[in-house]
């Protein structure tokens, strides 16, 4: 049970800056996911928290105490690795108890702790096996057991599910979530999978090029992404970005959208709400970010939504929903419709646009405007 504070932390290898001025604060019992594509520095940050990499600037505190120069073993943390990093020469029981043994815990106490953790993770029948005799999922459990048995202040997970197959990954994701709920431990979890991040996290920190792009709850990151990178990274299929100009029609402010309808390009005006903010943007070019589920079939849609008719180029059924690819503002955009209402490719159909939830981005800085 602990808090973790990162103050202006940076990491340099020679003159190459890998992490730049990272600051975040984790409350007691919070699960924070570091999300980013490979090479963004998320694993480096995790290693810095663990003490496996030195901190070039700034400081990292656990429970308020600066740990920059404290050896990993004295930081009271545990880490689960992507490769599991089980000791191949030891049995499962020895693997789990190794950390306790190094800390001088007595044999009887060790056995007791190992047994209780093994039971919790349902690996108690595997205790005498070697890691090579285990399946991927079992190895993952042992790796988690090794972390759990010491009851550390902070748990660190380095892409723990990346080596598992899709089905097992979902199962283990649930396990980790349950574990976090029952332990109420502070956890830092690194992943490049945005679904893992969204489902597990209390808060997500999205990194790109060694800089935190946004540090917020999953809901906020999804609905109000700080910039186009975040908006495009989170959500699947990803957000549609449409270059548009803010315009006025009558006393309504909105955007003009070029729509492909029956082979011809039509310009359609889509009114937007909260006119006050938008009035300052009149005439400016902006990027309209709209998620696929905000473009749905006209049928059963709420009355006050903007409507469009356009040609559907490609239809991709995914089971629960069908994705229609349509041309909006000259860009291929994805609409998510119910399979019953989806038309055949090449035909045209009506869509409802929930523009009130859409985001506007600055085309130059790519930052969120409103």
């Amino acid at each position, binding site marked *: 049970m602990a808090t973790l504070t990162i103050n202006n932390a940076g990491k340099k290898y020679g003159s190459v800056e890998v992490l730049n001025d990272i600051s975040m604060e984790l409350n007691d019992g919070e699960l924070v996911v570091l999300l980013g594509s490979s090479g963004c520095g998320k694993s480096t940050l995790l*290693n810095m928290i*663990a*003490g*496996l990499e030195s901190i070039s600037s700034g400081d990292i505190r656990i429970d308020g105490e600066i740990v920059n120069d404290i050896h*990993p*073993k004295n930081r009271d*943390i*545990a*880490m689960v*690795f*992507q*490769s599991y*990093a089980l*000791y*191949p*020469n030891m049995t499962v029981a020895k693997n789990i108890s*190794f*950390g306790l043994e*190094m*800390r001088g815990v007595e044999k009887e106490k060790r056995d007791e702790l190992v047994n209780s953790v093994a039971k919790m993770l349902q690996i108690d029948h595997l205790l005498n096996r070697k890691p090579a005799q285990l399946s991927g999922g079992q190895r993952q459990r042992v790796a988690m057991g*090794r972390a759990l048995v010491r009851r550390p202040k902070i748990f660190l997970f380095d892409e723990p599910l990346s080596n598992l197959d899709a089905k097992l990954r979902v199962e283990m994701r649930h396990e980790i979530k349950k574990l976090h709920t029952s332990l109420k431990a502070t956890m830092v979890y690194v992943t490049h999978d945005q679904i893992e991040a969204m489902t597990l996290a209390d808060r997500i920190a999205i990194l790109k090029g060694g800089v935190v792009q946004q540090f917020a709850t999953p809901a906020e990151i999804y609905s109000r992404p700080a910039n186009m990178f975040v908006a495009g990274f989170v959500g699947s299929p990803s957000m549609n970005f449409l270059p548009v100009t803010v315009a006025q029609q009558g006393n309504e402010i909105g955007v003009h959208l070029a729509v492909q309808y029956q082979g011809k390009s039509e310009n359609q005006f889509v009114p937007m709400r909260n006119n006050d903010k938008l009035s300052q943007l009149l005439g400016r070019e902006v990027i309209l970010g709209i998620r696929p589920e905000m473009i749905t079939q006209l049928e059963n849609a709420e009355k006050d939504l903007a409507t469009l008719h356009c040609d559907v180029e490609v239809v991709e059924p995914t089971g629960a929903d069908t994705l229609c690819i349509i041309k909006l503002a000259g860009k291929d955009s994805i609409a998510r419709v119910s399979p019953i209402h989806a038309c055949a490719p090449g035909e045209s159909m009506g869509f409802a646009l929930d523009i009130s939830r859409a985001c506007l981005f600055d085309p130059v800085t790519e930052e969120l405007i409103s």
Partner: protein
Amino acid sequence: MANRDRLPGTDGKGRYIGRFLIYLTLAVFAIWYLAPLYVVVSTSFKDLAEIRGGALLSLPHEFNVSAWHKAWSQACIGVECTGLKPYFINSISMSVPAVLISTFLGSITGYALTKYRFRGANIIFSLMLFGCFIPFQVVILPMAQTLGMLGIANTVNGLILVHVVYGLGFTTLFFRNYYVSIPDDLVKAATIDGAGFFRIYWRIMLPLSPPIIVVTIIWQFTQIWNDFLFGASFTTGGAQPLTVALNNLINTTTGVKHYNIDMAAALIAAAPTLFVYIVAGRYFVRGLTAGSVKG
């Protein structure tokens, strides 16, 4: 499908002729290489009269081990007629510690070079690698001076030091390349678990090392046991290793040349390395290729 679609030589007469030529060539080469061994072994069991008869390739008339006996305990080496026995013991008491120490040091150096990538680790490794390519002859003079200064010239301990120092480059190379294939995450996990440099070495790295230990021991034992130059350069008389004694035995002649004793002595000198190969040989190839495949 027509025959012309098949690979050439897989069908018809051509195939048998081809096979025959291949096996004939192999047999000729096998005989070519095995003939000297055969001559050495058979001569060692002959008595002198039979050798003088001149039938070099014939089998011994009767199985006679007296030449082995003489080579071991009676043959004259220089003026001392002690046989090879004391020198055999010299060689054992030189090779065993030298092999074990150089293997252990190579292992711990390889571990430090791969898992604790300190500043300059690569330079140190390159320099050690460079040490593998320095010819023996280059180090003889400085090494003689060093041994003199340390007061261990003309002793078995001096030879142990020489072989440990000279072998370190090779053993480090072996262990370093093996440890590179062991994931760094293991060391990270153990560090977080609270184990230090030596604990990780004893509890994790060393238990994973048997294949490469076997390779290194075979390599080092063969090198050290068979070494002649260092033994001849740094020792005289009673401290000499077996290889030097063998040379002296063969060069010490009083009238008649005892080929049977020479041959038996040569076989005695070669026996330990053969023994090590037979016992540990099957690990050798396995260990040499380990690391190329993760496992």
